[in-house]
């Protein structure tokens, strides 16, 4: 009984909107009612009209971002764990602080950094070292850098949580038994920190799959990502049913990729319940 209000809130705030989107997705294209004749045409169009390309960019971009974030987060988390007292707090705050600033503002700042000629990086190189460098602004590389920059904290902190749960005695025991650094990481750190890493990777992947601003602000729209294609259908195309069908496909793909991973995570163990 005590869970009833939560269940109702979830039903109203989470399931109902998805149900509405699902119904829209089977309405005739470019209509605005939920009572039209049911049609699969939007899903057919999703598979036949080139939407695979933005979907591919989004999924591969999200995967690459997640991998890069994990690679960067591992040594950072280890270093943070080794810090003590106020130094650890200070560095953690430095990493966490940008999360409280609007993503667009951060990305615009990043674009000023990357800008050619008068940009912060190129301008400084020119003024201080008389070296002319090009710019990666308005390329996929810049967008990927932005994705890593924005999503890095979402991987780092769950991973840090996972690492902090490893009993030091276990590591010491492994060392006493002659484990090398590599063995220590493979046999002790990685398996025990895996739940934190998986949660971080999930956060990162799901958020990166829905990311759009990085490609818009840093990538010069060098490719179209799926969220942009969805936005186009809802806005300029005034085609809510097609936008809804693409949204449902993204939800389905996210669930397909994420749910199996989620099953492997023991949340209770992670929060030591």
């Amino acid at each position, binding site marked *: 009984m005590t869970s009833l209000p939560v269940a109702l809130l979830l039903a109203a705030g989470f399931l109902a909107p998805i149900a509405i989107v699902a119904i829209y997705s089977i309405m005739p294209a470019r209509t605005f009612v939920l009572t039209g004749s049911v049609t699969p045409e939007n899903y057919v169009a999703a598979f036949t009209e080139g939407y695979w390309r933005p979907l591919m960019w989004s999924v591969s971009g999200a995967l690459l971002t997640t991998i890069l974030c994990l690679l960067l987060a591992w040594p950072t988390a280890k270093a943070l764990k080794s810090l003590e007292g106020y130094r650890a707090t200070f560095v953690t705050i430095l990493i966490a602080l940008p999360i409280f600033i609007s993503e667009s503002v951060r990305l615009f700042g990043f674009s000023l950094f990357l800008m050619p000629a008068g940009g912060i990086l190129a301008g400084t190189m020119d003024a201080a070292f008389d070296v002319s460098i090009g710019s990666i602004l308005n390329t996929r590389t810049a967008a990927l850098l932005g994705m890593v920059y924005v999503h890095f904290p979402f991987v780092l902190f769950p991973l840090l949580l996972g690492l902090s749960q490893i009993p030091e005695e276990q590591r010491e025991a492994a060392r006493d038994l002659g484990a090398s650094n590599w063995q220590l990481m493979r046999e002790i750190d990685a398996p025990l920190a895996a739940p934190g890493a998986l949660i971080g990777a999930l956060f990162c992947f799901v958020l990166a799959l829905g990311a759009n601003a990085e490609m818009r602000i840093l990538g010069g729209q060098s490719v179209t990502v799926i*969220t942009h294609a969805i936005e186009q259908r809802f806005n300029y195309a005034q085609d809510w049913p097609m936008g809804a069908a693409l949204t449902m496909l993204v939800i389905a793909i996210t669930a397909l990729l994420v749910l199996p991973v989620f099953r492997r995570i023991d949340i209770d163990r992670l929060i030591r319940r």
Partner: protein
Amino acid sequence: MQDHRKLAALAARNPLPGVVRSRQTINRRELIAGIGAAAGVAALGCTPRDSQTSELSLLTWDAYADPRLVNLWREQTGGSLRYEIHVSDPTSVNRLRAGETAVWDFINLNNPWARKQLWPAGLIRDLPRERFEPLFEKMFEKFAPPYYWAMSESGEHLLGVVQRFETFDFVVNADVISPRTAKNEGWDLFNNNDLANRYGILAYEDWNVMDICMGAGIHPFADKSEQDFTAFEETATRWISNAKMITTDFAQLNLAIINRDIDAYFTGGTYSITSARLEGINNLYAITPDSGPADGKGGINWIELNSAVARPEPQAETLDFLEWITEPEPAWIIANGNGNLQPVSQMAQPEVLARFSKEQLAALQWDEFPERIANSVEFDIVPGYDRLYDIYASAMRARS
């Protein structure tokens, strides 16, 4: 060095901070915070609107969100204004369709929406003609009542009041491409292979569709043949794939011109460059072609129409506000709204025109304004838009 200083000044002073904020996609945290706030308000059993004070809610482009306008309205009437800046015309139309007629009092959109979409869908209400038509008499001659875009299809209902208007075609770096050449060449400039990878696209997508029509030699507002669709597809694919950058932020495109990263961009006009020109960056130059395929014209002229949303419980102050904004002082503020200088229909009155400084008129390329308007067709609904847009969006998806 001077360019660097200008660049720094421009970067530090985004002319439209509100727009940038509003253009960002709402993220999950903001959504959750919004749901939380709405739930809190609902739990308290009150509406977000305080019924004791008169507060008008504006769904608008940036100019009407100027703090000076908000303050002047408060000083003169005691009422308050709250506003939200459009992400795009169609997004705001979506919001009214989705039931936000209960939220907004005033909407400010480009001309075709009121007549062709909002009024037929019952999303705006008509204005008393005897009160509002005399306001049109004080505007430029082209707006003499009954002005086509301010009226319903039946010609009986007045749907709004005209204020800001301008052409919106493309922008060049005048140090690289002479404005005279650009006007002569018109949209063929972007068909020239020499400009490939040297231009950007401001992704105001409905405008892009119209521009690509012009570039393909098609009248955007006339019915299309199969041949037209084929020509559009070829041009859209080429123009989109040849673009160096595509963005919804014109400040980025202006900076790219200053940095010599690009030499031109479409869609653009004084709307996207006056702030920079006021900073002294006069090589940013708005171009309206001398000629084109739209009845011999190559430019497109937008006209904003201010309308009263069909609120279930309309406020009388909405009509007062619609009339008040045409007075000289508010009209001047709106022309300068949020640092973005644009012509208003009231500049036909010497009293309003005299308020503009020489620098402001130079930034607006005011001496060319009659020529720009004369060389343009008025923004309209594009026949075959759905199909054209799908071709455009498909070319965007293929850009990789």
